[in-house]
């Protein structure tokens, strides 16, 4: 499980029946310091997250079981919207400096 920043939405009209009504978001995985970690993934959303939100992602089989219909072809899911990490500033995407963890409130 890891942190991510929602960077967009994905719209697909034609999809596997079990995915009807499931919101898909484009999410960039990040470290606790806000630094990008690899490429963006498409994640099913269970929390009504929106672009700019920092979220808690799960992956693999556990992503599918987080959804109302657990036997669906989904490999990443958003299972929480993150309010804060450590005692640092709220991890809002625009105000979260990349790189040095000390720069966002002294937590290393």
């Amino acid at each position, binding site marked *: 499980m890891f942190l991510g920043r929602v960077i967009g939405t994905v719209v697909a009209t034609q999809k596997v029946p079990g995915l009807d009504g499931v919101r898909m978001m484009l999410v960039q995985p990040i470290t606790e310091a806000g630094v990008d970690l690899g490429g963006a993934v498409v994640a099913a959303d269970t929390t009504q997250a929106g672009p700019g939100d920092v979220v808690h992602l799960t992956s693999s089989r556990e992503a599918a079981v987080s959804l109302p219909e657990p036997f669906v072809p989904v490999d990443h899911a958003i299972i*929480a919207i993150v309010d*804060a*990490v450590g005692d640092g500033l709220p991890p809002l995407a625009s105000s979260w400096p990349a790189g040095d963890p000390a720069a966002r409130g002294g937590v290393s």
Partner: protein
Amino acid sequence: MILGRVLEPVVSTIKHEELFARSVFVVEPIDADGTAAGATFLAVDHAQAGPGDQVLVLREGSGIRQVLGQPKSPIRCLIVGVVDAVHVSHDTPSQAAVAAKPGA
């Protein structure tokens, strides 16, 4: 399971119902000697761990669903123990040395 060090808590209000009343931490994988060994990840606490603790982390979803008794839990990394000590035996012969021993 792997050894890890708990770094800091992750606070969420809106979350999946299987995460209600559970603590989530940023965890850093570590070697037996305590040095960082890889990218950090998020783990749910099931052992009353806190920041700074060395912990045992289970990273296998179906095992976690058994431990929690929740067949629909989306948790993929679970802290299942707080480590008191790790002892590494450096004088254990390697597999190669055992295989090379005459008459073995």
